[in-house]
């Protein structure tokens, strides 16, 4: 965190000053470790085993926060007898369709009196192939603000003794994560695990809370989502959710990445975590609502949110009669993640590409494939501060050097448009705590630089103008569309009337914020998402942001100093939803509505006033007393009981066991990374059986574990960032003051590995995988520590990934090495744990580079099938 988020780390230092203990888990000893009380060196790719070991400790020693767990988690909920665990099936869950590589997750359900839905699917008409396509779309990110479908009123056993209750299932599931096994798998010595277990549990309970902070080291795995799930289970058991000082903080990869999932740049979502409609099962608004709405809690109001969004998009054109233009929305036909998009480029189906502040030529996994994809396009638009590699690969990319591409033969037309920096435009950042902070234009952008808002608005304006002028029949509509006019309607009907200001015609960002906030039919700004309606009388661009412009005031621009308000500081910026700073903070009070302790008081029930009150905005129905119990037939918000603290969840509980929402299992299980020198010591199942595999000649996988050829890639490697650089380097390698601080791409190795491979400090090394070979300067450092894993020593190679051929400091991109095997929930690549070889000296130049990679592939016996087995 000190390494990649130094500004945020000041608060860790502040906490440390007040007595907090810092534990840092990382393969390397980093700038964060330097300030931690305990550093846990771990084998990259083994975190589920490690955290699973802590869960096992908590369960075995009954260190959980029993009252909290019983009241606010699904520990007591009983599962159906159809559920079979990894304990029963040697590492997989019930419902695995091995042939099609998907889980049928009906058997993960809660037991209840409700009638079982037909074949578990919400749209019974779907054929097997259609269902497969829907599942492959894996819209897991739609769970970003809580709540997949589940039985709202399951059977429970408050004594927690029923063999099929979640707590008992959990105990069985994690029993094998013993300290001995964790040591073997993760390389974490038993006494070190013990120390962490004691620190975490002693610091959790009514009086104390523990927070988890993770970054991309946890997400970028073929089981990335399950990494986070493991932490979620532990935090729910310990009562660390919804309470001050608790929680699980995702430190995102860029400023406002939280904002870019809330109002998504992701293919599978609409604003506010509304699922993007799928080709199958979402034919019209009613079908969509039926399929995507839960019965209980605030997600029961999906229709209000969706209709208000459609009204924000299409304004007066959206009416009850035309389904509020729901038909204008694009449809998913499978996974269209950034990596599938590259495949479609190579297949010739994706012919144009916009890159706004993104540098995939060096910044995305399997960088060579990214460039080859771009070389297959008709046109490419790059908007950035400087001439990044994604704008120049056709001229000086690695494939020009290897002779795989010739500049004069590349047909892609590349447009480079200079972008304005955040200091040159108005707008907001949303940070990891869901807090929006507004920034104002400090200076006008220089030269031809323009903001992204300017670009998008004026591009849309010009396209609309052209379509309107062209009129009927100017361009032939695709098959099945009656006329060009019909084809163009979704664009022509958009509300696209933002006012512009200044000499550059910059659109007013605050008006966009006001639209996101929403307004009633007379234009009055809304103040809460509870005001949204499904009858078309409200428009709202993102329901969870409703209230950010309450009273016509930009709430995100508030900057009242912390010294002038209480410690929650609700008047600094604005946090979704409803300016709540701690999500699910009903859980900070006991079931009767009293704080668990005075030290950790946050919100509580004020019986005198008949409402919830406290330091933070209560994340609960304001006047719902703790003893409220809903009627049997209650639905939606009425069905939330006075103790259902997790109000966005279908059953009002924090999920120790996830009966829905994840495509790769209801509980986390340790699987080896796609490429690993080790066999899975925990299960017979080596990999995540439903991980996404992309079979392509430029994306060959390596053998793993006991497979022949695995020893060709004997070392573990992981990528990471340095404080001095920013992501793919577009904002740092071109700046002298940053470039000089880390002026060369390097790898970090232990003295032991250096001795084993004859690597010289400050000399050169070549790192090889089945995709490519790169060269790096060598930093031999004791901060890299060999670990004991699976009965032998394993060495790890550290690779900061900021470099590329352009800028003031240049070097090979670590992403050349990375394969495309993805987490099936969110389609993220596995940069954080791979296997590689390392050798002394520089890599070959020209065509000899590919020869070296081929030689490695042959030596390891790699074929198209290697690594694709489940």
């Amino acid at each position: 965190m000190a390494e990649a988020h130094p500004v945020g780390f000041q608060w860790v230092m502040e906490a440390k000053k007040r007595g907090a203990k810092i534990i840092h888990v990382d393969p390397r000893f980093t700038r964060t470790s330097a300030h931690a009380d305990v550093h846990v060196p771990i084998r990259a790719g083994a975190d589920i085993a490690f955290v699973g070991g802590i869960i096992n400790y908590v369960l075995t020693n009954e260190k959980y926060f029993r009252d909290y767990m019983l009241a606010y988690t699904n520990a007591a909920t009983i599962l159906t007898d159809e559920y079979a665990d990894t304990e029963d099936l040697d590492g997989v869950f019930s419902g695995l369709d091995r042939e099609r590589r998907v889980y049928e997750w009906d058997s993960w359900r809660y037991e209840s009196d409700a009638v079982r839905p037909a074949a578990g699917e919400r749209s019974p008409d779907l054929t097997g192939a259609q269902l497969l396509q829907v599942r492959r779309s894996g819209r897991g990110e739609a769970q970003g603000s809580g709540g997949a479908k589940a039985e709202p009123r399951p059977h429970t056993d408050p004594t927690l003794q029923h063999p099929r209750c979640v707590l008992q299932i959990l105990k069985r599931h994690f029993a094998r994560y013993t300290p001995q096994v964790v040591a073997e798998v993760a390389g974490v010595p038993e006494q070190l695990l013990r120390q962490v277990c004691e620190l975490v549990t002693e610091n959790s309970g009514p009086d104390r809370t523990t927070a988890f902070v993770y970054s991309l080291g946890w997400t970028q795995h073929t089981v990335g989502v399950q990494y986070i799930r493991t932490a979620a289970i532990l935090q729910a058991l310990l009562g660390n959710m919804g309470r001050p000082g608790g929680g699980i903080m995702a430190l995102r990869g860029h400023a406002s990445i939280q904002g870019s999932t809330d109002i998504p740049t992701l293919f599978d979502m609409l604003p506010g975590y509304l699922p993007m409609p799928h080709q199958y099962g979402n034919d019209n608004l009613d079908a969509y609502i039926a399929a995507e709405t839960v019965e209980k809690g605030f997600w029961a109001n999906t229709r209000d949110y969706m209709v208000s969004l459609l009204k924000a998009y299409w304004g007066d054109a959206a009416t009850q009669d035309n389904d509020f233009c729901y038909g204008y929305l694009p449809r998913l036909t499978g996974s269209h993640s950034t990596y599938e998009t590259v495949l479609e480029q190579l297949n010739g189906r994706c012919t144009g590409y916009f890159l706004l502040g993104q540098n995939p030529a060096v910044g995305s996994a399997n960088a060579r494939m990214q460039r080859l994809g771009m070389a297959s396009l008709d046109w490419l638009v790059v908007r950035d501060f400087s001439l990044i590699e994604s704008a120049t690969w056709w001229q000086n990319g690695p494939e020009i050097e290897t002779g795989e591409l010739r500049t004069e033969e590349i047909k892609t037309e590349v447009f480079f448009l200079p972008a304005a920096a955040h200091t040159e435009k108005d707008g907001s950042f949303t940070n990891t705590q869901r807090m929006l902070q507004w920034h104002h234009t400090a200076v006008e952008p220089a030269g031809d630089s323009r903001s992204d808002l300017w670009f998008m608005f004026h591009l849309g304006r010009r396209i609309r103008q052209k379509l309107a002028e062209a009129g009927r029949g100017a361009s032939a509509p695709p098959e099945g569309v009656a006329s060009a006019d019909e084809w163009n309607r979704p664009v022509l009907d958009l509300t696209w009337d933002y006012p512009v200001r200044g000499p550059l015609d910059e659109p007013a960002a605050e008006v966009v914020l006001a639209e996101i906030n929403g307004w009633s039919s007379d234009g009055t700004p809304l103040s809460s998402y509870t005001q949204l309606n499904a009858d078309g009388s409200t428009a709202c661009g993102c329901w969870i942001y409703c209230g950010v412009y309450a009273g016509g005031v930009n709430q995100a621009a508030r900057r009242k100093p912390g010294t002038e308000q209480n410690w929650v500081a609700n008047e600094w910026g604005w946090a979704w939803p409803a300016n709540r700073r701690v999500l699910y903070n009903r859980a900070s009070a006991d079931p009767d509505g009293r704080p668990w302790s005075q030290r950790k008081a946050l919100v509580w029930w004020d019986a005198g006033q008949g409402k919830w009150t406290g330091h933070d905005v209560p994340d609960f129905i304001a006047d719902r007393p703790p003893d409220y119990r809903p009627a049997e037939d209650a639905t939606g918000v009425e069905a939330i009981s006075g103790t259902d603290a997790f109000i966005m969840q279908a059953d009002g509980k924090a999920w120790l066991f996830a009966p829905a929402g994840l495509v790769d299992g209801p509980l986390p299980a340790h699987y080896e990374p796609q490429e690993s020198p080790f066999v899975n010591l925990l299960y017979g199942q080596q990999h995540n059986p439903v991980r996404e595999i992309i079979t392509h000649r430029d994306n060959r996988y390596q053998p793993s574990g006991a497979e022949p050829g695995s020893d060709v890639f004997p070392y573990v490697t992981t990528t990471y960032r340095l404080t001095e650089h920013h992501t793919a380097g577009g904002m740092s390698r071109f700046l002298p003051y940053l470039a000089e601080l880390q002026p060369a791409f390097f790898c970090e190795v232990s003295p032991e590995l250096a001795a084993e491979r004859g690597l010289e400090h400050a000399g050169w090394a070549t790192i090889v995988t089945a995709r490519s070979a790169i060269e790096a300067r060598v930093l031999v450092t004791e901060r890299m520590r060999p670990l004991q894993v699976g009965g032998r020593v394993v060495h790890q190679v550290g690779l900061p990934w900021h470099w590329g051929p352009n800028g003031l400091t240049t070097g090979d991109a670590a992403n050349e090495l990375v394969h495309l095997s993805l987490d099936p929930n969110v389609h993220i690549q596995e940069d954080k744990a791979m296997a590689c070889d390392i050798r002394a000296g520089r890599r070959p130049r020209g065509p000899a580079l590919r020869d070296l990679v081929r030689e490695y592939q042959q030596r390891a016996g790699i074929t198209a099938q290697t690594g694709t087995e489940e």
Partner: protein
Amino acid sequence: MSTRVAPAFAAGPTDAAGGLDPAARSGYADHPPRMGFFTDTSVCIGCKACEVACKEWNKVPEDGLELTGMSYDNTGSLSASTWRHVAFIEQIVRAGDSRWLMSSDVCKHCTEAACLDVCPTGALMRSEFGTVVIQDDVCNGCGYCVSACPFGVVGRRETDGGAHKCTLCYDRIGDGLTPACAKACPTESIQFGPLDELRERAQGRLRELHDAGTPQARLYGEDPADGVGGAGAFFLLLDEPEVYGLPPDPVVTTRDLPRMWRHVATAAAALAAAALLSGLGQRS
């Protein structure tokens, strides 16, 4: 701690902490309190924001794009084009408590500043804040200050021939602003303020660390009795100064000058006498 060199300075006005008041000695009759830096290296996270902020504000040029191989320190040392330098010292123990020390070094703004003493043009001056500043438009690039500095802080820049170093953001503090490095520091490792306040704060922090079981913690440059009369920019270190590349016992290099001149005068007189005597002898 190493033994202190007894102060050998001329008597003069003193500041609140009992040290000499350099601004008053330089003729500022009515002046603001002496300002300085307290760099608490125990909370430095090595982010180098100080280096970048300093260069941005002071328009200091880039200083070389070489990988040094010295841990994460690619800056190397203070120089004409590096006015803040973060040192990284790896003390890794395979079984035990490893440390990775980080420390942001800067010009010490000495009470007894040799650089200022030797400057023949008056380019180096004492400000009303008690800091030491080089005036670019007066400096003739002779370089005397470079060799005079006991810390190796001052350097000459090849591109303009002039000597350059930290000004303690003279052009900011006069306007009531915090120097760029301290402003950018996310963990308050670099603290700016009136020197006597900083010294008090540093003593408190030192006690805190000693009580928390860090006996190696020590202050460096805060003592008005040291060889430079106390620094205007002082440090809390977690190890011997040498570990950070700092001289353990810095002495103002002009300390012995008066004595040296006396010796020279004596020697010259002796020579003259000898010459005279020898001349007399020849004649006789």
